[in-house]
């Protein structure tokens, strides 16, 4: 990289997102592409950004539309942007938007681009339902058939079980283990009690509710007028339960291990629809256009481990790398945003930060240390706000920068766990 010149500092000009809606509710008629387009259009409207200033759109999504797999291109082909704006999509499971931001930052740092919109979107109300292998074979054969009798003969091979559609599962292809089962396993391995998980979930809901009430959390979202009638207007994250109690959470039955389990619908993030986007620029470009960035990217890092081990534990490996690249320690951080896939995962990650075993795995001599809870997910997280896979990374980036600004802090870090045993961390700074 350095042979191409000095790297440039990357500014996070601002970020915006749709409210997050539980799957099957307000946004059920909107595709991820539509949510992404609405979000990027609003980002441009709010920043008074002229399309001609944009170099590229980088977008992430986890469950892509089969007919339009390059979501970034579909989003970029909007009336607010010239058709010549570059676009590519990225996939890093739940860290997809983070990867989009990292890709964009790289292009800016390298001096290839000056202004990139990065983000992600997900509609878990609209996942593609596939035909079974058997039925797919029949359809392909019928497609090749030259006459009616060949077509009929192809269809005659259909068996009743072939007609059962296949819905994508949130499961690891290599291990067959579902995300929830992985979280359940992590709870057991790291000795995370049911009560501590429920308490953490409750904390998430209470803090998010407070953030919505005082407007800190609402500031990062815009009202979505839901077509076609626009009578429904999404103005807030509809998964946040202000009135949640420990008793209510304790009453829920474990989902993945009914006998000895501790992971419930209450301490796991819900299936969610939504989109988020951030506007990234070189520091010079942001200055030239008169923007006051909400933050700057100081470093980022990613890590991976065996999905059969502890699927969602890779942030423990990514965070030290990002901090090292930033030249900082845990104590230097004013805020930490940790994506909450499951309470068990957050608590396992925090446990890992403190453990000698994970320190050594990360190549450290000593553990990273204990995270000050007063600095962690101060407006809740995915457990309460919701988790549209492809969009979450954009949300945590925006939330982190905005809150760092409000608190007058200097450094903040975000971490995101992702399927496949992947982890991502980014360190941001102010001014």
């Amino acid at each position, binding site marked *: 990289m350095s042979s191409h010149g000095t790297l440039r500092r990357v500014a996070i000009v601002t970020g915006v997102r749709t409210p997050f809606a539980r799957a099957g509710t307000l946004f059920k008629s909107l595709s991820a592409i539509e949510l992404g387009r609405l979000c990027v259009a609003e980002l441009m409207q709010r920043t008074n950004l002229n399309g001609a200033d944009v170099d590229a759109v980088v977008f992430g999504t986890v469950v892509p539309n089969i007919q339009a797999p390059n979501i970034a291109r579909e989003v970029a082909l909007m009336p607010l942007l010239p058709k010549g704006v570059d676009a590519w999509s990225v996939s890093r499971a739940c860290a997809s938007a983070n990867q989009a931001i990292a890709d964009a930052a790289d292009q800016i740092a390298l001096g290839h681009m000056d202004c990139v919109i990065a983000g992600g979107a997900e509609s878990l109300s609209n996942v593609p339902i596939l035909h079974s292998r058997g039925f797919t074979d029949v359809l392909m054969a019928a497609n090749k058939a030259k006459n009616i009798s060949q077509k009929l003969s192809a269809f005659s091979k259909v068996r009743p079980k072939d007609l059962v559609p296949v819905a994508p599962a949130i499961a690891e292809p290599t291990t067959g283990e579902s995300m929830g089962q992985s979280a359940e396993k992590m709870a057991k391995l790291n000795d995370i009690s049911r009560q501590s998980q429920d308490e953490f979930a409750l904390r998430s809901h209470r803090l998010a509710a407070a953030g919505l009430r005082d407007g800190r959390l609402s500031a990062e979202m815009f009202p979505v007028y839901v077509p076609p009638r*626009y009578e429904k207007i999404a103005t807030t994250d509809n998964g946040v339960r202000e009135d949640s109690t420990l008793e209510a959470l304790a009453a829920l039955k474990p989902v993945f291990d009914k006998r000895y389990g501790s992971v419930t619908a209450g301490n796991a993030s819900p299936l969610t629809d939504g989109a988020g986007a951030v506007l990234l620029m070189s520091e010079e470009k942001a200055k030239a256009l008169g923007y006051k960035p909400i933050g700057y990217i100081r470093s980022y890092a990613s890590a991976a481990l065996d999905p059969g081990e502890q699927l969602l534990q890779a942030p423990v490996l990514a965070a030290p790398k990002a901090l090292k690249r930033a030249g900082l320690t845990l104590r230097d951080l004013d805020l930490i945003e940790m994506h909450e896939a499951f309470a068990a995962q957050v608590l396992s990650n925090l446990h890992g930060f403190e453990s000698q075993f994970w320190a050594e795995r990360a190549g450290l001599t000593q553990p990273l240390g204990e995270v000050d809870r007063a600095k962690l997910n101060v407006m809740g997280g995915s457990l309460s706000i919701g988790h549209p896979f492809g969009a979450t990374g954009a949300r945590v980036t925006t939330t982190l920068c905005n809150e760092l600004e409000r608190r007058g802090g200097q450094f903040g870090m975000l971490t995101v766990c992702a399927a496949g045993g992947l982890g991502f961390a980014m360190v941001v700074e102010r001014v």
Partner: protein
Amino acid sequence: MQVEGGIAVVTFDLPGAPVNTFTIAAQAELREAFDAIQRDPAIRAAVFLSGKRDNFIAGADIETFLEFTTAADAEKSSRAGHAAFAAIADGKPVVCAINGGCLGGGTEFALACHWRIATDAPKTAISLPEVQLGLIPGAGGTQRLPALVGLQAALDMILTGKTVRAKKALQLGLVDEMVHPSILRRVAIQRATELADGTRHREARKHGAGEMLLDDNPIGRAIVFRKAKEGVLAKTKGVYPAPLAALDAVAAGYSSDGDGYQTEARLFGELAMSPESAELVFLFFATTALKRDMGVDVEPLPKAIPVKKLGILGAGFMGAGIASVASPAGTIVRMKDADTARVAKGLAAVREVMRDKLVKKQVTRPQFDDLMLSVSGTTDYTGFGNADLVIEAVFEDLQVKHQVVREIEAVAPPHAIIASNTSTIPIGRIASASARPERVLGMHFFSPVHKMPLLEIIIHPGNDPQVVVSAVSYGRKLGKTVIVVRDGPGFYANRVLSPYVNAAGLLLDEGVSIESIDDALVKFGFPVGPITLVDEVGLDVATKAGAIVAEAFGARMAPNESIQRVIKAGRLGRKGKRGFYLYDETGKKGGVDSSVYDLLPTGQRRSTVPAVRIVQRCVYAMLNEAVLCLEDGILRSARDGDVGAVFGIGFPPFRGGPFRFIDRVGASDVVAALDELEREFPGRYQAASSLRQMAEDGTRFYPAMGKPV
């Protein structure tokens, strides 16, 4: 003309003109070219192309129509066209390669050729718009089109002047092929070669069942003609002679004893001399001239600021309406209102208009999605920071307007133009709150915005000419007919409308029935009568506008009693589903709501005033007011007044507009009528002094001969 392998390639490219028209010189040249093709034994066939990028042939040069002094002149010109096109039709094979607009005489030319190819370019569109000028196709169009596409399809085009795109033209059999523009020339030459070699023949189009039942036999045709005539009469209320003449000409082509071409020439001649055609041709010239008028008289003309982003304040009926025409013009729109519920209603209203385009297949689904994404709503001023133009359509209250002007100026960039969509408040007064009054003007759209063609731009003495030019230019981009008027109560459109509506209200005061008032003015040629109009615009809006002009102009605008009483009873017109007429749940209009008479001064007692007198009382008040607007300098020209009245308030197009109407009646007769009305209704019909002067001098607003504008 070039000759390639025995094929003559004729390219029509009228020098120095944006479009090809059949000027006298062009006609002569074309005749020569085709004579040469017939004479030259080396030429076996021909291809005809246009040298213009987006136009094939726009038709006859309309200025040549002004040369006709008698019907015989016009008839002769039609016969000359017949002879010229017959020579083509009877000669060597000609392939007509159509790219871009193909209108009138251009279409008739194409019909005379032996093979037609249209490109699939969006600009390619074929029409016979003669009826829109009060004429009929005069170069064989009424004969060759039915022969080619069948009676029903032909009438559909000829009676309305509607445009047919390439795909539809191919379906109809109007063209034989549709190709990409890049291969038009090559394919045309290939077809010409094949036609010359005899390896390709045009095959007769297959007739559909409906066509066989109706078009292909005399009884069926009689039914088609009767239906078509009923349709024309229902639509034109019998005031437009051209579509009826077109029917006669087409029918003559099917009759055994008549000669269709002779009938076409004779009727073309008669129509060319008709007052209806003269006025429609005037409007063609007036609107064409208006398109070149940027509304300011400064040299050099300032360059217009392009409007890429438009801010709209107020997501109500007008605000959403403006958004619905701005988005299709390629503008990014930010629409603000006080709360999300209002913004939502505005977005839904925009979607209605866009959906209509989708249903009519004017746009594809992705285009529709883009049109909707171009418009976004907000309850704060975010997104106004890069607006080039902000139009306010908020509540009609000076204090509110002042506040929003200041708010806009705090967020919008310094170059931004601020336009008020006010219909009642003087622009100068609104601009007085501005730190940049030179950038504040009026853009008065008419409701419903996506349907009403007029945009009245109101300027005040302090305006920067560049601001005016920019607003005019953007208004045209929105597809509007733009007139620039000076500031004053009611501006132009509402000011001339007020005494007209008021006169209708005074007739109600006297006990005249609602139907007889509306019927009289519809027969005069207005699209709806004045009482229906009041229901449509809303009684609140109408009375508010009435009060403003009454305050400014005193006795001649003193309000009638009836409309006041009806609004006091809480009837707002269509929007409240209660007015002078009945409305059902969906807002569909029914007959007169006779219970409304209980609210009127004479109650259920009716009196009668003859229709002629009703028309005179209403229309002459309007005519006089229009002259006063010109006299006061509100209007920059009589032309603007005529175009404004026709496109803004529905003045009958075949009467040209108030000024053209006065010219036709004669200023002295108009003054005499006004004087007589003034004696009966003192203070209301005092003839404008300039009009009295014209009556004395025997002068007119427009030249009696030649090009009117």
